[in-house]
């Protein structure tokens, strides 16, 4: 009879379930170097050729262009005071213009000319806060969420430019800048001073993800290639490659994976995007 009294509640097996850990036999995802030096160069060049560098000017100018697409009542007439050369967007509940463009959200711009009577000082333009979606008559969206600053600093004997750019920006409308078409996520600073352009920050565009780690270009000595600093390049498995430039103008960097595995010399040709960078950075509205 007792044989029939088969319970089905699992019997404890007497295992010590203290701190010994378990062994389910999981195979954790592993990370390995995905690129050779040449492939890494190709990857970076591909990004540079396809998308170029994401500048706040791209987003800001696009915003200005598309703000012109509405009519007198939409997007204009929003709740924000308009105290700059550039329109604010204040349409928390959204509006539809007679031209077919729709606007929702906010775009709080700043436009400060802080120069003194001698012309010394800064001119700053940008978004204090952008959080908007602008939709074309065809249903394509330009969407921005973040902030930006574009600044020219005038001094007696020189001028410098700098940019700060953060947030997520996407533009599916016609004639969109390529990096916004692919959807960009940015958090970086960039300064140009004494002939040097320095970048520091995080940039994600489409499938590309980079860290610009004090990457420096020298306009005088090496205008077409990074001069110093490190460009970090993310792989699909979440690990990172490093291209460390050695303060020369060889156009080549020392490549490593995970800061430990040497990949060899990585030589880049990204002259075209760099030219564009010089020009764009100076083009502050």
């Amino acid at each position, binding site marked *: *009879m007792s*044989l*029939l*009294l*088969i*319970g*089905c*509640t*699992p*019997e*404890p*097996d007497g*295992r010590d*379930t203290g*701190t*010994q*850990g*378990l062994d*389910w036999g*999981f195979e*954790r*995802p592993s*990370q390995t170097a995905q690129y050779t030096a040449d492939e890494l160069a190709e990857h970076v060049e591909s990004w540079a050729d396809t998308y170029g560098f994401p500048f706040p000017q791209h987003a800001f100018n696009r915003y200005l262009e598309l703000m012109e697409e509405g009519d007198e009542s939409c997007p204009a007439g929003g709740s924000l005071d308009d105290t700059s050369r550039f329109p604010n967007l204040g349409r*928390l*509940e*959204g509006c539809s213009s007679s031209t077919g463009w729709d606007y*929702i*959200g906010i775009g709080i711009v700043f436009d400060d000319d802080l120069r003194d009577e001698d012309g010394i000082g800064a001119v700053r333009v940008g978004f204090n*806060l*952008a*959080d908007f*979606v602008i939709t074309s008559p065809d249903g394509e969206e330009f*969407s*921005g*969420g*973040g*902030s930006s600053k574009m600044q020219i600093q005038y001094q007696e004997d020189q001028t410098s430019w700098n940019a700060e750019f*953060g*947030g*997520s*920006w*996407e533009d599916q409308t016609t004639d969109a800048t390529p990096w916004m078409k692919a*959807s960009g*996520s940015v*958090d970086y600073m960039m300064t140009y001073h004494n002939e040097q352009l320095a970048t520091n920050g*995080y*940039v*994600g565009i489409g*499938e590309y*993800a*980079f*860290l610009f780690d004090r990457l420096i270009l020298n306009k005088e000595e090496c205008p077409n290639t990074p001069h110093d600093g490190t460009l*970090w390049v*993310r792989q*699909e*498995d*979440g*690990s*990172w490659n490093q291209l460390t430039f050695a303060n020369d103008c060889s156009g080549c960097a020392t490549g490593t994976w995970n800061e430990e595995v040497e990949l060899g010399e990585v030589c880049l040709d990204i002259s075209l995007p760099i030219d564009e960078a010089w020009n764009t950075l100076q083009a502050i509205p």
Partner: protein
Amino acid sequence: MTRLSTFILVALPLTTGCRFAPETPESSTFEPLPETLLLKRMSLDLTGTLPSLEALEAVEEDPALLEGFRDEYLEDPRFEEQLVFLLQEHWLTAIDEYFSVGHDDYGLEDTNEYAWERAIGQEPLRLMARIIVNDEHWSESVTAHYSMGTEITSKIWPMTGYPDGDEGWHQVEYTDGRPASGVLSTNGMWWRYTSNDYNQNRSRAAAITSLLVCEDLLARPVSFENVSSILEAEDVSEMVQTDPACLACHATVEPLAAALFGFHWVTDYVIQEMERYHPEREVAGPRELGVNPAWWGEPITGLNELGWAIADDERFYRCTAEYWTSILYRRNLTLEDRGTVDDHFDAFLTGEARVKMLIRAITDSEEYRAGAFKVSEDDDIEIARTVRTMSPNQLSATIQQLTDFHWTYEGFDQLDSDQWGFRVLLGGVDGDALTRPALDPSLTAVVVLKRLAEAAAQKSAAHLGTGEGLLGEVSLDWSPEDAAFGTALEALYLQILGERADSASLAAYTEIWTTVASLTDSQTAWEATLGALFRDPLFYSY
């Protein structure tokens, strides 16, 4: 049925899982619930609804069939829905407001507000529920490469895989490069447990340790009196890595936070930042915090490995056993429950970390099956809950099951929301200010139940005599003297309250029917009687 044949029946194997459990063991502490009431408890806990009349009658006839019904409930489609609400009591993600962003930020109509809120907050809950229902190893909850989305989130978030033109919850995958980490990779998780530039994902790290391994770092006292020169420090964030008083928590928090920077938002309250993962920011974690990612001292590569580190951590499974025990026992656990949790944990591990096995073990236990204490004391309610109050979703699901009445208001499920609804008034959890269900009847709950009962009874009474619904077979021509009247009343009582009416109860309900009929008419009397049944404490409790 003889005891021998009962044993033989118990010994026969069935195809789906482990169907048989011992009869409720003889307990020194508890009187067990009668089988029909235990069936009611299991049905409400596992499906959110009452057992069918047929099931009640079958178990009444043959109590050994109870276990079979319990196993059916674990395979019932309503089990997945019920899991979402049970899991909410621990995970607290289904809130009504998300970090100052709203449905209108997406241009959605107000009638979509509730659906939008739940599409976000239920995402991690639905993922876990689906894993449980599919009988997957519990590690899947932190390593899955997929998530769950609705017709709303699949359109507004970077997701793929949602069936075109469909509605409801379906498996999806994110397309923004976030790693496969189950709930740790869901927007629903991080829209609930937010962070900002000052906090740098530390609160998220604390949420992970509390929710997944039951290590509540925030419960540890923090005393600035013991921290040397915190006011002198130029950089307090450096102190968290050097000062012993800070390191007690931060030795764990900082490396864990460092793994979460893909979810770092550079601008707060902006949907464009919040809805996507930022792979390029992953490397910001170690750089900003000055430590490499690690899980309780074990180095990891980042979020992509975090889920696996958790899945390898025994505490993850013990914590799961712990909170499921608390959820199904309907009370907070104490140190004295350690042995009980150990037993359930063992069963969970032996069951290859399938949550259904864990739930079986818990619902087999003495305390779960307890109907009363053998010796009652005033404070025994703090030891075990032998009488439980229906939760808001159980009320809602049960009323819908019985009457098709669903209390909605302009897109809101009124028993599952708080902006216009009655969730917290009914003792529910809002996930934010209220994190534990109210377990005793309150004034507001009684009022909500009253109105719910009135509305549901009215809807049901509209089908009186039509062959549909609870009153479908009732005739307006019956009077209390008719045998059919008594039979119908008995059946209603059994179906709604889960137990046979004694003569006093039948007499009481007959009397109220008569009273109302004398004031109005037969239809109103049946409606009122039904409404009274829905307000009966034996309906509201189980």
